[in-house]
């Protein structure tokens, strides 16, 4: 995997700001801390940008450009595994 900014992971949360998106963001932050990774967490709220990922459900979790989950909220432990 190629990291653009050194070894900082790029995590994107796609969602228009509904409650579920906020829950996902909270889980992601906890997972990053738990995994001890250096990661940049970006919230993507623009609908056209979200649609560019070709997803069919929000919120969605994108790690280093790859869609890892969509339309559901993965648990903290599951996200920790995705970060490895």
């Amino acid at each position, binding site marked *: 995997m190629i990291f653009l900014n050194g070894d900082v992971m790029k995590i994107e949360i796609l969602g228009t700001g509904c409650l579920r998106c906020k829950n996902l963001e909270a889980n992601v932050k906890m997972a990053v801390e738990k995994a001890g990774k250096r990661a940049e967490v970006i919230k993507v709220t623009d609908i056209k940008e*979200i649609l560019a990922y070709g997803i*069919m*459900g929000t919120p969605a979790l994108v790690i280093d450009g790859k869609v890892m989950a969509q*339309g559901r909220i993965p648990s903290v432990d599951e996200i920790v595994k995705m970060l490895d």
Partner: protein
Amino acid sequence: MGVLEDFGAWVVYSLIGMSRGDPLAEALDFFIYDTLKIFLLLFFITFFVGILRTYVTPERIRDFLAHRKYGMGNVLAALFGIPTPFCTCSVIPLFMGFIRAGVPLGVTFSFLIASPVINEVAIVMLLGLVGWKITALYIGIGFIIAVVVGFVLGLLHLEDQIEEFVLTSKISTVAENSGKEVLSLSKRASLAFEESKEIIKQVWLYIVAGIGIGAFIHGYVPQDFFLEYAGPQNPFAVPVAVLIGIPLYSNAAGTIPIIQALMAKGMAVGTALVLMMSITALSFPQLLILRKVVKPKLLAILVGILAISFILIGYLFNYLLQ
């Protein structure tokens, strides 16, 4: 469910020591019994639907519905709408995904209508509170409305009413992993368990509040109180019920216990059914979101056709079930 009933009665009459015939005791008894029953049902049903959902993903549905003809396409779309989760925030990506993959507009709408109307939370509430007959009636009517309304929208050829960007905006990444991955059964079960927890976390407060208000109505409002206003004899009850239902979406979980209590006090079954449908199918937040992907004319036609179908259904069932 007998055990739960006994438990409710035991708490109220033995543990707290209230006397039988006291309206507060009756309300409390109802509250404890209904809440326990609903949460048990909610957990089991959301869990099994959750497992089903790991097989029936939006991507698979989209691929299956692409280029289907009107008629059969609407039936299949409404059928797939039943187990599919509904979150208002997913309407736009879902709509665009369907349209771009070649799912016809009317077929897409059959899916978009069936999905919120026939959702597992509403089914649990109905099953737990009003019995399987009305639940089956609700599911049947919801299904037929989704098929017919989608079919009619298809006949009207409203493709020019889709917002431009839905058809032209660039999809640079294809999300190919989610939905097509091979999962073990234990992984599916754990995903379903997470989802059950998530759903219960979202709706529990509404359910408790709704059952609380319902229990209060059961205990304190006189029998037949609503017969005059919302009974089968009042022709205005049905259209008013449809109108009231529109702004109530976010409390779908909380409104069904209240509607059940209203029915117990004389509201006609048809009126109650359309009130529930209007709550789940027509809602302001959902219409606002749909407005981003379709033009106002299509939206107006959709709301119009849905409202007319609900009113007709309400009258029909009030007449049949008298």
